[in-house]
């Protein structure tokens, strides 16, 4: 499903060159639940960003469903992200000026989904994460766990095949973290491919496969 070959990522400033990822080779199969672990600054989020087409590698190739994406233009990459990938971020990244339902609708805005079905899909997604009673609330009126559930609803509303979660439980207490993890496992059971960056060994143990990074290199 996702195939990374000889991926290298270098961050350059005028005076410093930092190797964030070095020779990463990775194959994620359809339906897998993979966790990525490693110390802070080892390149986990960079790897996730490259897999999610949010960032470009300095070297190497990224294939999604057997297609090389390096030659894709902005519009094609945007379409792929929109249709195939859902993102969950540690700090939720909700738009505070929009209501819960409007936030969840965002991925559908960039498809030809009309207003009414868009709202129906958003409500269904919110129902799935147990937040159907909060659709008119604004992010600032929600707890951390509720915000992350809104973020999950937003990630799944477009029914993507892949969900990329960057420390989805990082800002939550363990009870809430477990609840989020249960939701992710449920989504995986329904067929979604999930790749999750985490610092938490216990969460990682609940996934099918663990990838460890150290200083930008895959060690396990």
């Amino acid at each position: 499903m996702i195939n990374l070959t000889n991926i290298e990522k270098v961050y350059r400033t005028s005076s410093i060159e930092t190797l964030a990822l070095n020779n990463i080779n990775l194959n994620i199969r359809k339906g897998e639940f993979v966790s990525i672990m490693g110390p802070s600054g080892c390149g986990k989020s960079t790897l996730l960003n490259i897999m999610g087409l949010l960032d470009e590698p300095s070297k190497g190739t990224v294939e999604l469903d057997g297609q090389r994406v390096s030659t894709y233009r902005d519009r094609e990459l945007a379409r792929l992200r929109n249709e195939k990938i859902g993102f969950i971020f540690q700090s939720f990244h909700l738009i505070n000026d929009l209501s819960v339902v409007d936030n969840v609708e965002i991925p559908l805005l960039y498809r030809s989904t009309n207003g009414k079905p868009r709202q129906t899909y958003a409500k269904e997604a919110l129902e799935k994460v147990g937040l159907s009673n909060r659709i008119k609330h604004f992010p600032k009126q929600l707890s951390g766990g509720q915000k992350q559930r809104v973020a999950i609803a937003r990630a799944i509303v477009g029914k993507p095949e892949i969900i990329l979660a960057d420390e989805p439980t990082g800002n939550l207490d363990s009870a809430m973290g477990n609840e989020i993890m249960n939701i992710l496992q449920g989504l995986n059971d329904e067929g979604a491919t999930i790749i999750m960056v985490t610092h938490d060994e216990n969460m990682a143990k609940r996934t099918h496969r663990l990838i460890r990074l150290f200083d930008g290199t895959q060690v396990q």
Partner: protein
Amino acid sequence: MLSNYIKIAWKVLLRHPFYTFITLFGISLTLTVLMVLTSFLDHLFGSHYPETKRDRSLYIMQMRTQDSTRTGSSSGPMSFKFLTEYAKSLKTAERVTICTFVNSSNAYVGSQKIKLNTKYTDADFWEVTEFDFLEGKPYNEQNIANSDLVVVITDDFKKQYFGNVAESVIGKDVEIESIHYRVIGVVKGSPVTRPFTYADVYYPYTTPKSNYQRTGMRGGYVAILLAKKTSDLKTVRDEFQSHIARIPLPGVEDGYKYAYVEVKSEPYVENFVGTLNGNKGLKTVFFGIIAFIMLMLIGLPAINLVNVNVSRIMERASEIGIRKAFGAPVRTLMWQFIIENLFITLIGGGIALVLTLIVIQLINSSGIIAYADLTINLNVFLVSLLVCLVFGLLSGVLPALRMSKLKIAEALKA
């Protein structure tokens, strides 16, 4: 999607009331100036009282004669005789009026002097124009043929001369420059900005001092040609030019030997521009200057707004990152920010519209321009709307470009 954009734009406005106030203040003030300017241009050039048929009128304001080397020239209004021969005789025009421009005169009420602007006209003047007769009626061909000493006066002059009287002054006597005239009609005055129709007192051209019998081509008269419909303007103009082509050349006028004669019949705007200077290409210069002033009035505040908008980019970086991550292409995001900016500009435009109504009301009632009738009509409104859109685009595109080019991963870190 549009409602999503507008919701965001509204929330962004509410987020920082002070910034919003500064932004809207700048936009409103700029647009108010532009709207008042547009309204004034419409007042100058549009079809308004009493020249409501300007859209099918051609104006003949001056003739220009040149010597054989084209190094010397002379220009000015024409004689009644000349216009009768070359303009009044037009077959394609529905009607032609010959009148003087504005002349100065004095009248006295007791020892108090009233400064007057007067105009000599033919009877067709009242058909080509559409004056509101508050009392009485216009003079006709018979009055002119009889050289009747009759006048049409404005309501303002009536008030000055007869006092604030409610009763009719038709048939009453008015003494101007020691000549007694009988008031035959009272009209609502024409604004001073419409020199072809503006005056306080209108005389038939056969009354004394009109110089209508002057021979030669030059004199103190101008003319308005009224076409049957707008599409006939070219035909009328062509016929008039064919008449002008019949003028025997070379000739002598008041000792000046001329070899070329140029008399134009033009729509009001072109005629107006032509009077500023006889040079060719002046129209382009005139409209160029107007466009430049408009652009500066829009451009400078727009640049300022661009700076404000760009400085607020980082505040929206996270949102841009989110939208891009979930599939927003660069072009769609650009449109989002342009639409947001247009939305804000239209709010500013709405405020400006109210301010403009207040300003033009003040101008109209101040008496700075006699009989001023500045309005916000459909033309002014549409131009103002266009100005708002141009302003919104000018101030929105650059920030939108900057915003949409942010790298997703970096934007999400913001």
